[in-house]
Structure formats: structure tokens, C-alpha cells
């Protein structure tokens, strides 16, 4: 076995051991398994949220896009930052309500607020639909890491199967406490790896990052700015806005906000988390260094750039360390995604749809049984797909962001949306997303004669506009009935 694979296997063993250890002493009820008994403080929630946010996507996808696209990759630095600012006001309100009503999942929130079980089922299905591509992204990342670390001895297909086996084992064994401890380990590793690669590579290979950027600017003019058309400033701004709004709509992110002990945890996090985003700078530096050092990767293989340049500059031991960090960045969010998807399918779809009084133990049992099933579906999709990590995430964001209007309009004391409005808005938004995706439409193809400022906009804007328009129209038409969100209490 080569040193890289050995290190990666060792990091998995440690993650598993932490998961088993963390579980001891906590009876595994559904609430314990998925929201950790609501007893986490600032540090743990910080780490958990960071754990979900620093995923394979940021690590491999971020460097991959810096390598393949240049400046458009900077959007990744923006949306998280703006979302944290928003969280200062949004999450305490959500947490207070969730805590008062002992809610476990995101769908529970919609059910309570709008007093509609069917809305809960729709929200659940939408969120699972969005989580699958996100999970596919993690598996793809695992596949890339293992196959690169083995220098091609393990094919990417085999690696994806191995990776999902690892993920399933991990989730079934640990639950959320395991994620939190592994997240601590993962954060230390990714911080270390990103800082080392991001400072050492530009300094050592190119004589400093100012030199590196100057070299890139000479070799690839225009690469360090947004192009005039295509991924232009209009694309950049609209993409950041959409992904910012969608940021907390992920059920696992929404759900991890329930784990907080009190609402000040979020406010402190809103101050700290933007700084944590700065790690991304070093991820970008690595991608840029790779562009000069290991050129020629195109299409989906841009996602390999970080590992290639590591191997090129340091050899197999360092590749092993980076691969181990990479494994954890796929394992933590991957386990959260898998766990959330299964809890949702079991508790918010099966239990509501099939029988109304399913005992808690059975819901937990089904959630666990679903873990390998959902993983298998994701593996099949992973092996079929051909998108870069960033494009996969952007597609998933278009789906999940559609939940934002219905959520935010339920928060005021006199809610603006009715249950019919919320339902119609979400369905119309998602139908538009599906139609746009299937036809491969862009703003340019929809409105060919409009100026570039419009045609470059992220096409997700169309779905959002449809969603909000339908939501408001239906809410207005149905508003004369008793105000459903309040009578729900």
C-alpha cells in the first residue's frame, strides 16, 4: 500500500473511532441522533456549521474553479459571507420558534408555521431532491481523492463505491455527535492544509503570490477579472444573491441551527464565520499555483488540480495528508446530508404519508434503514454524471433556494404568505427550475435581444421571480380565510 492511501485509511479509522466514542453515554433517540439533544455551545455549533460549509466543494471545487475559470470562482468567497450577515437576524428567530415547539427538522418548521402537513411533505421532498446532487458532489470528491492518492491503481468508480461504503458505515455508527467531533479534526486539518499549500506553493514555485498573479495575468490575460460577457459582473452578482438566499435553506444547515443552546450562539457566529471564509483565499491560491505548474487539465478534471499540484510539488506523503483532510471534508458534510435526507424521508414523508401515529423508535429504525438506500441512489447518479463540482452545487442551489420566500414570509407576526400561497409558490418555482434544467435554457436563450446585463443573469432568477409572483398572487387571493400560520398554534 502506498503512503498516501495508508494515511487516508488511518484518517478514516480515527473518524470512526471518534464517532463510536462520542456516542457512548447518549441514548439514541431520534432527537439525539439528529440534533444532539440541543445542547451545543458556540464552539460546537460553529464547528458543525463550518463542517457543513467547508466541504469537498470548497476544497477541490474551489481550487478547481480558480484553476479552470479564474475570477468567477471568487463568488464562493462572497455568498457565505453575506449569508452569515443574514444569519444574525434570521437564525435567532428560527431557533426561538423551533425551540418553543420542539421541532426536529426543517419541514416541521413549515408544518407548524403554515399549519399544513402537505406543505411539510412538499418541502421535505424538495429538500431531499436538492440534497442528492450535494451528496453526489461529496461522493465524487471521495472518488477523486482515493483514485488520485492511489496514483490510478484504484479506479474512480471503485473509489466511489468504497467512499460511499465508508460514509454509510460512519453515519450508521455515529450520528450527529460523531459529526461534531470529526468536524473538529477536519477543521484543524483543512485549515493546516489550505494554509500550507496556499502559502508554500505560490512562494516556493513562483516567488510569492504577487509574482504568481503577475505571471498568470501575462500568460492568461483577463483570467483574474470577470469577463465582459458570460460570467460577467451581472452573472456574479445574481449568482451570489441566489446562493446567499439559499444558504440556510439546506435542511442539514437549518437543522444544525436547532442544535444551539441559545440564540447568542448565532450572533457570535455571524461575527466569526466571515473570517473563517478567508481560508478560501488559500484554496484559490492553490488552484492558481496549479494552473502554472500542472497546466492542461480541462472539463471535469479541473477538480483534480489541487491534488495534482500537491503530488507534483511534494510527493506521496503530502498527497496522503491532503487526501486525508479531503476525506474528512467529504465525510462530515456527506454524513450530515445523508443523515438529514434519511431522517426527512422517514419522519416527514413516510410517517406523515402512510400512518399518522408511528412510534419514534420505528421512525429512527426506518431512517437508519434508508441510509444505504439513499447512498446507493447517489452512487448511481455519481457514476452517471459529468459535471464539475461547482456546477453540481449551483444546480442544487437552484432547487433549494426556492424555499426561501415561503420561509421568510412566514416569519413576520402577521405572515404575508398563506399556506396555499406558500405551496403554490414553491411548486411553481420548482417546476420552473425543472423546465429550465431540462431545456438547458439560459437568460440569453430566453431573452435573446436583451442587453448583456440581463442575459448574463443566473437563470435561477427566473424561477425565483415566478415563485414570488405566484406566492404573492395566491396568498392575496386566499388571504380572506382565517390567517392560517397563526391559527396553527
Amino acid at each position, binding site marked *: 500500500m502506498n503512503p498516501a492511501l495508508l494515511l487516508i485509511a488511518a484518517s478514516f479509522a480515527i473518524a470512526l473511532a471518534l464517532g463510536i466514542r462520542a456516542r457512548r453515554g447518549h441514548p439514541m433517540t431520534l432527537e439525539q441522533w439528529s440534533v444532539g439533544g440541543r445542547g451545543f455551545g458556540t464552539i460546537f455549533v460553529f464547528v458543525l456549521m463550518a463542517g457543513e460549509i467547508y466541504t469537498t466543494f470548497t476544497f477541490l471545487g474551489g481550487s478547481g474553479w480558480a484553476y479552470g475559470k479564474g475570477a468567477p470562482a471568487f463568488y464562493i468567497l462572497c455568498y457565505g459571507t453575506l449569508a452569515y450577515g443574514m444569519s444574525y437576524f434570521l437564525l435567532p428567530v428560527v431557533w426561538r420558534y423551533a425551540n418553543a415547539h420542539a421541532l426536529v427538522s426543517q419541514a416541521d418548521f413549515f408544518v407548524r408555521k403554515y399549519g399544513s402537513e402537505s406543505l411539510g411533505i412538499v418541502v421535505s421532498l424538495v429538500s431531499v431532491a436538492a440534497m442528492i446532487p450535494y451528496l453526489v458532489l461529496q461522493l465524487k470528491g471521495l472518488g477523486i481523492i482515493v483514485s488520485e492518492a492511489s496514483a490510478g491503481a484504484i479506479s474512480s468508480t471503485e473509489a466511489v463505491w468504497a467512499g460511499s461504503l465508508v460514509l454509510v458505515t460512519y453515519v450508521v455508527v455515529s450520528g450527529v455527535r460523531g459529526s461534531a467531533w470529526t468536524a473538529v479534526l477536519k477543521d484543524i486539518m483543512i485549515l493546516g492544509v489550505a494554509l500550507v499549500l496556499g502559502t508554500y506553493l505560490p512562494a516556493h514555485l513562483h516567488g510569492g503570490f504577487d509574482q504568481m498573479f503577475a505571471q498568470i495575468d501575462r500568460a492568461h490575460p483577463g483570467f483574474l*477579472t*470577470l469577463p465582459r460577457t458570460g460570467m460577467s459582473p451581472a452573472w456574479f452578482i445574481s449568482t451570489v444573491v441566489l446562493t446567499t438566499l439559499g444558504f440556510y435553506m439546506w435542511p442539514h444547515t437549518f437543522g444544525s441551527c436547532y442544535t444551539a443552546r441559545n440564540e447568542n450562539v448565532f450572533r457570535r457566529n455571524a461575527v466569526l464565520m466571515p473570517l473563517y471564509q478567508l481560508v478560501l483565499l488559500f484554496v484559490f491560491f492553490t488552484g492558481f499555483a496549479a494552473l502554472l505548474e500542472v497546466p492542461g487539465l480541462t472539463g471535469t478534471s479541473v477538480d483534480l488540480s489541487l491534488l495534482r499540484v500537491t503530488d507534483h510539488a511534494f510527493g506521496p506523503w503530502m498527497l496522503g495528508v491532503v487526501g486525508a483532510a479531503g476525506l474528512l471534508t467529504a465525510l462530515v458534510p456527506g454524513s450530515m446530508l445523508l443523515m438529514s435526507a434519511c431522517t426527512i424521508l422517514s419522519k416527514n414523508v413516510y410517517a406523515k404519508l402512510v400512518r399518522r401515529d408511528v412510534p419514534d423508535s420505528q421512525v429512527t429504525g426506518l431512517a437508519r434503514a434508508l441510509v444505504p438506500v439513499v447512498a446507493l441512489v447517489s452512487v448511481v447518479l455519481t457514476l452517471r454524471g459529468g459535471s464539475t463540482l461547482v456546477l453540481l452545487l449551483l444546480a442544487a442551489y437552484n432547487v433549494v433556494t426556492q424555499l426561501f420566500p415561503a420561509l421568510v414570509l412566514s416569519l413576520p407576526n402577521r405572515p404575508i404568505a398563506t399556506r396555499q400561497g406558500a405551496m403554490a409558490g414553491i411548486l411553481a418555482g420548482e417546476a420552473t427550475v425543472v423546465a429550465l434544467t431540462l431545456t438547458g435554457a439560459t437568460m440569453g436563450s430566453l431573452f435573446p435581444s436583451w442587453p448583456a446585463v440581463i442575459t448574463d443573469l443566473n437563470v435561477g432568477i427566473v424561477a425565483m421571480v415566478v415563485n414570488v409572483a405566484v406566492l404573492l398572487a395566491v396568498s392575496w387571493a386566499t388571504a380572506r380565510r382565517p390567517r392560517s400560520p397563526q391559527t396553527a398554534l
Partner: protein
Amino acid sequence: MRLYRWLAIAPAIGMLGGVPFANRVRPYVFGLPFLLFWVTAWVVLTSVIMGTIYALDRARERDAGRGRS
């Protein structure tokens, strides 16, 4: 009213609204191409701004005599 809370929209306006104007390589600041510097500066400013709002919120809560933590 807590008017200072409106400060929270400054990052969105500064970071995104500035992109069309900051979309250039030169001047390099701290070795970063200007666009990347611009975005990074706003990431840091976001933390500062949110920290200010948090401090003011805490001060108000203490004045009200019943901190909510």
C-alpha cells in the same frame, strides 16, 4: 428602533455593488489582483460590521436590565 442594525446591509451593497467597478487586475493590493482584494476586504469588513452590531445589541440588552443569554 435599532437603526444601527441597517448597517448589516452595507456588506451586500459594498461587496456586490462594487464588483462592476472593482473588476480589474491593477492596482495589486497586498499582492492580490484588485477584484480579489475588493472581495476579501469586504469579507473582513463584514465581520467588523457584524461585531459592531453585536456589541451595540449587547449594550442595549444590558441597559434594558435583562440580558437574553
